[in-house]
Every structure is written in structure tokens, then in C-alpha cells.
């Protein structure tokens, strides 16, 4: 019996450190990251963040500029000076309009600098770029959506449906994937709306191929109405942000920029 390696193990053992002095935004950002399927550790102060990173180094730090005990920039410098965390990439979140702080962060070498309130897509892209060897550009969600292929409704009784959706593509779970490069006409039922797209098969998986990979095919949309693309983008954003929202007020911008 050969030992089979487990690629999910590594994912389980890594986590992202989130620091934000604004409680609402701390909750918002850390819930989003968990819905992107990352594990997180959160801190409301720089002191908590440093205590936590001393226990185990995170794969990434996402810090707001506003923290009650020191600035996010100072936290960033502290992390860079500590040999245990000097290699850990940092994403900074600054208030929109605080260009000076954003510039300081960029010059000091942050992985990226995002505006508050953080946009879901921007956060996803920045995190992927900072820590993934094959970063994805587009947010994807796991889902269960009915789909027709060339006019034929796939059998949900046999478990056939769209299981992953992004604004640029889809994964369809099926035992009978089409050949790679086949062009297919799809109709997907997204939130009571039928979205029709033309898509091309990029890859296929049979039973038992690939760890944790379900049989089916990955498709890229090659023709989609811009309105439908926007509709899918909205749907994904709603799913990811369900029940959470960033801080409405920008109240920290004044004390911060002094």
C-alpha cells in the first residue's frame, strides 16, 4: 500500500493574520477570508497581532492602517524587523484618499495596498497574488446550480450540476464530460434568472482522477452578455458577503492623517 500525499494538509496548516482597529471591518475582512477558504487569526491591536505572530508565523498579514496602539505601518515595520516574520507578505488597508500612507506602504514593499472599504474582488485578487503559486484573478464560489448543456438539462438526480462558478467560467460535475476544446451552449439558473453562455471545455476529470477532484469538466466562458456577466458578479458578491458589511463611516481618516 503506497502512502498517498494529501495536498489539503498544507492548506489546513496555514493561516492569515488580520489586524484592524475597527471592529466592524475586522469582522468583515476575517469572515470574507474564511469564505475564500483560508484560516484566519484576528487582532484588534498591534500588540495582539505581534503576540499571535510570535506563536506561529502566518502565511500573510492583512493590516489596516488604523490600530489603537500603533499604526499599521509601524506594525508592518516591526514584522519586517523580526526574522521570524520578515519574509511574510503584508497587505495594507488604508482609507480611500489617504494617498500619503498608501505611498509609504508601497515604497516600503507591501504586497499590495487596498482602499477602505475593502472590495471583495480586490481583496481576493490581492490575497491570491500574495500567497498562491498559481494565483486566481476571479473570485469563485462553490455552489449547486442547475444547468443545461446544448439544450439538455443535466440530471440533478445523478448529482450533475454546476458546482463552482466565477464570472469567467464554471465547473460542471458530470460523469460524461465533453472533450477538451469542445464548445458548448450552457444555460445556468442563477437566482431565478436563466443565463445563457457559450463556453469551451478547458479540462476534464474522470472518476477518481485528482485528489478531492470530482468528475466533471471545467469550462471557460467565451461568449457571455456583459449584463449577464455583471449579474453573475453581483450574485457571487452577494453570496460571499451574506450577513456582513464593511464599516459605513470613514471616521478614522482624520486622526489618521495627522
Amino acid at each position, binding site marked *: 500500500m503506497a502512502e498517498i500525499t494529501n495536498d489539503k494538509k498544507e492548506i489546513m496548516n496555514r493561516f492569515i493574520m488580520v489586524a484592524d482597529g475597527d471592529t466592524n471591518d475586522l469582522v468583515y475582512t476575517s*469572515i470574507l477570508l474564511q469564505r475564500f477558504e483560508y484560516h484566519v487569526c484576528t487582532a484588534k491591536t498591534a500588540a495582539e497581532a505581534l503576540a499571535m505572530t510570535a506563536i*506561529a508565523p502566518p502565511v500573510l498579514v492583512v493590516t489596516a492602517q488604523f490600530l489603537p496602539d500603533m499604526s499599521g505601518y509601524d506594525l508592518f515595520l516591526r514584522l519586517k524587523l523580526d526574522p521570524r516574520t520578515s519574509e511574510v507578505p503584508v497587505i495594507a488597508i488604508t482609507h480611500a484618499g489617504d494617498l500619503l500612507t498608501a505611498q509609504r506602504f508601497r515604497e516600503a514593499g507591501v504586497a499590495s495596498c487596498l482602499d477602505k472599504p475593502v472590495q471583495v474582488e480586490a481583496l481576493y485578487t490581492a490575497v491570491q497574488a500574495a500567497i498562491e503559486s498559481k494565483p486566481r484573478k476571479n473570485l469563485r464560489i462553490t455552489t449547486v446550480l442547475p444547468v443545461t448543456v446544448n439544450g439538455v438539462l443535466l440530471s440533478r438526480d445523478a448529482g*450533475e450540476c454546476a458546482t463552482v462558478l466565477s464570472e469567467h467560467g464554471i465547473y460542471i460535475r458530470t460523469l460524461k464530460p465533453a472533450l477538451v476544446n469542445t464548445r458548448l451552449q450552457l444555460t445556468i439558473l442563477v437566482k431565478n434568472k436563466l443565463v445563457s453562455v457559450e463556453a469551451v471545455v478547458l479540462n476534464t476529470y474522470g*472518476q*477518481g482522477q485528482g485528489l478531492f477532484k470530482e468528475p466533471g469538466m471545467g469550462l471557460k466562458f467565451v461568449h457571455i452578455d456583459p449584463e449577464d456577466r455583471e449579474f453573475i458578479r453581483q450574485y457571487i458578491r452577494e453570496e460571499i458577503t451574506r450577513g456582513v458589511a464593511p464599516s459605513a463611516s470613514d471616521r478614522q481618516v482624520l486622526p489618521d492623517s495627522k
Partner: protein
Amino acid sequence: MDETTRSTASVGYDRNSRFMLVVESDANNLFYTSMLLQRFDFRICMAATAEEALAMVPVAVPSLVITALDLKGMNGLELMQKLAGNPATASVPVIILIKQGDLVGDKRCRDAGAAECLDKPVQAEQIFRAVEAAVETTPRSSIRIRTRLPVTVTNMPFIDAEGASVSVLSEHGMFLRTQRPAPPDTRLSLQIGLNDRIISIEAVVRSSYRIGEGPYSEPGMGLQFVRTSPQDQELIRQFIRNEVTRGITPM
């Protein structure tokens, strides 16, 4: 549906819209408990003090609060009473972690209505069971991990002809991924490779899935262990504990 085969798809969706609030002033314990819960597939928020926790509640109401009794500032018991006094959080269950031997604290928390009181350092199995009991309608009693272990079915060798493996493991059962699942009630003799050991188990098929039917979007069968030696049982328990606590330790 039995414990080993409850749908992960629906649980995943449900879990995505809920989260638990972990409150602990000791950074190491806060880290430990929070990482454990995430490895159990729960979403979390963390707070170092009761005051921070109370500031989080208006943002989003947690489905459960897990707090240490001893905190900097307001203690865990007072936090629970504050939550109970707020209509928005009055029904949120609270689990309190108490220094071992603090029997007075334990009794006071129980009398005040804690869902559960656990001794620190808290064991992975205990916290799993307490959390499941507090928030799930059909709570599981043992931790399950996603894994990939080699397996041989000695009395039905054809089953592992095409790369069968153990994809979910708990102390009491497992999901065996195979394209040729045996029907329910079949008794199987298994050999599982666990680290560098091979353990032998007698199991009975509880549920059998063709492709697309099952809870794990993979074909196979849910098995309940009916006979293992105490040594092998302990090896499995230890293996699961090591997997969920890898790289993290309580104080």
C-alpha cells in the same frame, strides 16, 4: 443519515453563514482554540477581551460564544450575563473554559446558564463535542478529518482495484472512496495504513453511493467500525488528534 455520512455540502453552506466568537486574553490559548474550530470547519471571530467581544456582537450575531472565565477586564461570566441581558444575543449559547481545579468558578458558570464548562487546557475532542452539542441539530460525537489513507479490503479484494482510499476518518467510522461500493450491511475486513503502521478493522457498510449520490461528491461507502483492538482504536484517536492539532498547542 448516520454520523459518518452527513452531507458536507449542506453543512458547508450553513456553516458559511454562521460564525463563532472566541474570547480569550491569553494569546496562545486564543490562537489554539480558534485554529481548532476552523479545522473543524467552523467560521470564527476572535476577541482578546470581553469588551472587544461585546463590540463585535452588534456587527454580526454569533451562533455560539466560547470564552475563558479569566479574562483581562470583565470576566467570562460577566460577559455571558451581558449577552443574556441583550435581546439580540439572549439565546446565543455560551461555552466557558475554566482553569482546571476551579470548582467554584465551574459551579457559578453552570448555575448562571452556561451551555457547557470545560477544563483548560481543553482537549480537541472535548471542545468538538461541546460545540456540536451546542449548535447542531444532529450533533456528532467524534471528530472527523478529511484525509487520504491507503486501504485494503481483505475479504473483497476487488473493491480496491481502482485506487480505493480512506477519505474521511473518525474514531468510529470512515468513508471509503471506491467506484465499487458494497451494499449496506456488508461486513468488511479492512487494513488501513496509518503513518507507518497497518491497522486491522472489522466494519459494516452503513451507506453506499455511486458517483454523484453521496455527501462527499465522490463514490464510495460510509462504514461503521464494529471491531477494532483497543491499541488500534487508540492509534486512530491519536492520529486524528495529531492531524487537528498539528502546529498548535494549548498552554
